[in-house]
């Protein structure tokens, strides 16, 4: 699997640290209550198919990247800086 870093171009998967589902882009408000926070921290859609997850370009530029990919085929569709995806 190779991942396209928006800054550095296509790189080996080993340069990236996998953080998990890109839920961090929709973080609940601090006072959203325990159910919302439990759901955010623990529960996952865990789709068999297209998903968005968050990777950190640890061995490169240090960017946080939202990777749109398929969990069944391992195809990487597109990548985006988390900074831009969140705004």
């Amino acid at each position, binding site marked *: *699997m190779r991942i396209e870093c928006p800054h550095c171009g296509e790189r*080996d*998967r*080993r340069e990236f640290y*996998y*953080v*998990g*589902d890109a839920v961090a882009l929709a973080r609940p408000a601090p006072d959203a209550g*325990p159910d919302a926070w*439990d*759901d955010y*921290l*623990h*529960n*996952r*859609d*865990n*789709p*068999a198919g297209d*998903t968005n*997850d968050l990777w950190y370009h640890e061995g490169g530029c240090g960017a946080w990247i939202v990777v749109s990919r398929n*969990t*069944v*085929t*391992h195809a990487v569709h597109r990548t985006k800086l988390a900074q831009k995806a969140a705004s």
Partner: protein
Amino acid sequence: MGYSGFGIIKEGLFGQKGWKPLWRDPAPKARYDAIIIGGGGHGLATAYYLAREHGLTNIAVLEKGHIGSGNIGRNTTIVRANYFLPGNQEFYSHSLKLWEGMERELNYNVMHSQRGLINLFHSDGQRDAFVRRGNAMINQGDDAILLDRDGVRSHLPYLDFDNARFPIYGGLYHPRGGTARHDAVAWGYARGADQRGVDLIQNCEVTGIDIENGVVTGVQTTRGPIKARKVGIVTAGRSGQVAAMAGMRLPIESHVLQAFVTEGLKPVIDHVVSFGMGHFYISQSDKGGLVFGGDLDFYASYAARGNLPMKEHVMEAAMTLMPMIGKARVLRSWGGIMDMTPDGSPIIDTTPTKGLFIDCGWCYGGFKAVPASGFAFAHLMATGQPHATAAKFRLDRFRTGVGLMDEEGTGSQHNLH
């Protein structure tokens, strides 16, 4: 039909023509007392113990493929009880005891081989951790022996003891640990359940779970609707999809774990051995193939195949530990879909829907748990109460933070286990 040595000799003399299928191939009935979704090891064991322990025989196991086609036929076959935390300890201890009586009870040869498991350590700190783990195992009533270098050498003379980076300091020896023939475990439980009247329905995929006023009433399948007042979800890596049919989101992310097997070799590795400074473990199958594996690839995946970086890590660890392995040729590798929870421990619990139960989150350690998971899940489904050995596998422990079982001590968070 019971199996015996006499029967095998008789069939040998008469052309092996008397063997019969191990289970029926029934069509689904319109209604059962209970339905198990998932005909893997855990699901089959659940059905078996529901019938044997609780007298529930009007039950069905629904399997979308064929019996034994999932993780039960794709794992590295290790059976052990070397857990450290309360909750896990009593459960795996119970499981190992069930393993030890399984062949006699099922009248089926699962080739359970208690050849001993040795977890190696490579530093003083690791030795301390293993001393503590070994004491915990002994307190639980299981067996653990701390081996020094010479002790390890007497068992495993072929290791690279003086490796420059990772010299071997010793190992924690668990003599009752070992391996079993994974497919036979599925077949043995399937046969045992079928003999007690359980319908094993293959090629029957569940497409919906019927719920009325918060109570489960049955399931929709590719072979028509089936009614039942109790439904158990035991679908391993696919738990998320099945639970979604009941409107649930689970604390589970499915990951890929790879395994490898070499060409058949003469007996060379007598134990199950794990490396302490990289994720690598190995045993030799009775056919002669070296069966080994490592860590997750560490990204969500349903592909049932992995990528090259983890293959490279596993091969490097193998060469570091036992350089002789470089002469063996890898025959094949594959990947399984692991239902990973945030703390790395499983879930056997009720759900917010009355009559709906779930057994999932076995991460990369489900095989050894098969008998005790089936035993405990059957108890829960039959009585509504958790079995004493699995009382801590609660679904709400992540929400409350009470009773998290982070065996590796890395933190209760997705992506860390």
